[in-house]
């Protein structure tokens, strides 16, 4: 349909009454939605019926489970920066979304989740497939609303998209009763641009900006930490220009990965529990810590009583509730990271910190010698996760979107992938949702179909959402799946080894023959056991036109190091198992 046709159609229909269901679909199209991930059911059937008429304008992907739908919507949102949309029925359909919504909440992912609901006269009657999804989702949504009248549909969806995407993004749930879907309304859509009670982003305080610049200009050992806020505000270039002008070494959080080129000389690597050695120990040696778009997660800070006590702290953050929540700041710069970094760059002096940078590089050499080299060139016959990830990075020329699940596979993917463009790393950070990876990779691929999407997943996490192979098969979606199978729930096993006297309580896990499972879905794949077959197998996978599954047997009891044990100080980061007291 041309734009003109659309316009005539719109004006024609302006005064014609349409159903609430059609209004839902048309509102989604107005918001630029291209794709919905969903699963039909009784109380959302009218919307699905309306969708049938618009199936050429709005793509719908049928997942195999509602959790798959919401994780796919998350993967799509993370890869594209657009709002992810999912559509499910009431009751179990709605409750199956909750894990994904909680994940999106803690990882600030913009979602609009639409759930069907029983007719309004049945609310509270324990009707078939009725669940109080508004009540259930309240603590894990940025906003939620129940629509009981068709008239509310356009304005509520407009607000939903505005709230989900603006300020600190997050998930929004809209519950629509069946009578509101069937009812008629005079449809008119207006985008939402403001809500009286909601300030998505505060204006930058000039005095604070000057104070921050002063601290930066006089610091001897400044260190910048950045998180997903940089990606969410599209501040990647501003960040790079800022650190290049000030000469400040920088480190990313797990969710900040890919916001800066991995090989940028000022990129010192990853913070946190399994982050790099330098960024962790230097946190407790710097004299100024500049945190940009990150929230001082406990996986980043370790013990707070010994966290960066020697340093002045500047926190650049869009969410006022994050200021002083975990770490007391000296200068809090409230607002959008892009705008603040741009303004701050004008006020700071051009500087270099060669001696300080050298300290980071020395730490990098230590980590390289003690961990990275042996991870990449293991003496064991069994393959290491690190060498697999490293090979994929090399074979894709560091251009793939790397999706990971949760656990050792996630840490290996984060540590050994290299990134050359933003929004190239998708993982469940805050919630640590096993089973996130496969559906998230689906969403990412639908969002960015011209890019290679590679999933690293463990044998445990794969089995949590393995049914989504069905979605991949039905859509013939070229997602590349790398299962790193150690026949264990590896990260928990690692903790049991280090902190629970090797009492491997229920961490040994049986898996099916994943290649056969893939085959049953019509997805090609192969099993890799030997190192000499790895590269060829990876090449076969990457050159496959459609989906491909590689099951790689890895060393059974490998550990991820370095490691900041829970509750320890970042400066007490362990480089090997012998360091564990």
């Amino acid at each position, binding site marked *: 349909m041309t734009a003109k046709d659309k316009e005539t159609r719109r004006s024609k229909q302006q005064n014609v009454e349409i159903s609430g269901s059609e209004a839902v679909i048309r509102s989604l199209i107005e918001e630029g939605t291209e794709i919905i991930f969903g699963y039909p059911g009784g109380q959302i059937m009218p919307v699905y019926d309306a969708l049938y008429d618009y199936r050429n304008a709005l793509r719908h992907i049928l997942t195999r489970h509602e959790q798959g739908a919401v994780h796919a919507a998350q993967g799509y949102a993370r890869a594209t920066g657009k709002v992810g949309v999912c559509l499910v029925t009431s009751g179990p359909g709605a409750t199956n979304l909750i894990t994904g919504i909680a994940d999106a909440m803690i990882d600030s992912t913009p979602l609009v989740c639409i759930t069907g609901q029983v007719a309004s006269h049945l609310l509270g009657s324990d009707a078939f497939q009725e669940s109080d999804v508004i009540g259930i989702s*309240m603590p894990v949504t*940025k906003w939620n609303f129940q629509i009981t009248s068709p008239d509310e549909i356009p304005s509520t969806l407009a607000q939903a998209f505005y709230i989900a995407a603006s300020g600190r993004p997050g998930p929004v749930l809209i519950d629509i009763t069946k009578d509101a879907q069937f009812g008629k309304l005079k449809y008119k859509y207006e*985008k939402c*641009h403001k809500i*009286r*009670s909601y300030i998505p982003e505060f204006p930058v305080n000039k005095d604070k900006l000057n104070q921050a610049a002063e601290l930066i200009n006089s610091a001897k050992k400044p260190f910048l930490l950045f998180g997903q806020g940089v990606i969410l505000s599209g501040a990647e270039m501003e960040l790079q220009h800022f650190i290049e002008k000030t000469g400040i070494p920088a480190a990313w959080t797990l969710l900040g990965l890919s916001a800066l080129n991995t090989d940028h000389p000022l990129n010192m690597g990853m913070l946190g529990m399994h982050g790099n050695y330098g960024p962790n120990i230097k946190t407790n040696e710097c004299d100024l810590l500049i945190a940009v778009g990150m929230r001082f997660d406990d996986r980043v800070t370790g013990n707070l009583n010994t966290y960066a006590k020697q340093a002045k702290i500047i926190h650049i953050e869009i*969410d006022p509730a994050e200021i002083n929540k975990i770490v007391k700041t000296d200068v809090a710069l409230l607002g959008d990271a892009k705008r603040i970094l741009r303004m701050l760059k004008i006020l700071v002096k051009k500087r270099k910190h060669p001696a300080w940078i050298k300290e980071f590089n020395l730490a990098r050499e230590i980590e390289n010698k003690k961990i990275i080299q042996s991870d990449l060139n293991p003496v064991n016959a069994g393959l290491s996760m690190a060498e697999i990830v490293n090979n994929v990075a090399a074979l894709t020329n560091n251009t793939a979107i790397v999706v990971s699940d949760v656990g050792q596979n996630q840490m290996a993917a984060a540590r050994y992938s290299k990134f050359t463009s933003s929004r190239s790393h998708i993982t469940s950070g805050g919630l640590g949702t096993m089973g996130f990876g496969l559906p998230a990779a689906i969403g990412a691929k639908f969002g960015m179909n011209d890019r290679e999407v590679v999933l690293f997943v463990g044998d445990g996490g794969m089995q949590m959402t393995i049914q989504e192979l069905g979605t991949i098969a039905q859509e013939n979606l070229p997602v590349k799946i790398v299962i790193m199978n150690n026949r264990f729930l590896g990260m928990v096993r690692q903790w049991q080894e280090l902190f629970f006297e090797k009492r491997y309580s229920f961490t040994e896990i049986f898996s099916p023959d994943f290649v056969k499972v893939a085959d049953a879905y019509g997805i090609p794949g192969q099993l890799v056991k030997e190192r000499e077959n790895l590269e060829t197998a990876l090449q076969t996978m990457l050159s496959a036109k459609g989906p491909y599954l590689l099951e790689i047997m890895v060393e059974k009891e490998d550990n991820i190091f370095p490691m900041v044990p829970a509750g320890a100080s970042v400066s007490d980061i362990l480089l090997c198992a012998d360091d564990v007291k």
Partner: protein
Amino acid sequence: MKQEYIISAYSENHIGLLNRITIIFTRRKVNIESITASESAIEGISKLTIVVNDEKDKVVNITKQIEKQVEVLKAFYHTNDEMIFQEIALYKVPTQALMETNQLETLIRQHNARILEITPEYTVIEKTGHKEETQELFDGLVEYGVLQFIRSGRVAITRSPIEKLSVFLNERDALLEKMESRSRLRSPKK
């Protein structure tokens, strides 16, 4: 150090918002000592007054989390001495007790309470004051047999000369105007 704080929040009058606010306390295992919700001086805007007994850091964190809710306009926290506050208590005692002795009358006078209703069976007494004061009257009435007793949540008003909300709303309108024009400029590229 734990102490009593009064958290006040101004919000849109929307279904479910009270739940959104109370779960912020539940999640942090902070007990709500009392809560009142009613329309504020500005039409359509509700005011919530919540009393908690906790550490300052936690109260600050909770106040920010409340304000973060999309439909909350503004949230404040105050210590007791920063606010003037009252609670109301109703006591139902047997009328016979009132008739038999004049000590009960003295008690009511001393506590500046008043009688709302008298029937042959019972008398309803009302007292406003701080919790300790309403409690004191309750303790005094016990020996006459209290049939029913109920105490309200707290209502509180700041010691500053004007309600901050109106000033705040004006500032916010200006801010929103600025933001809206910016967001309209931005949106076409989407």
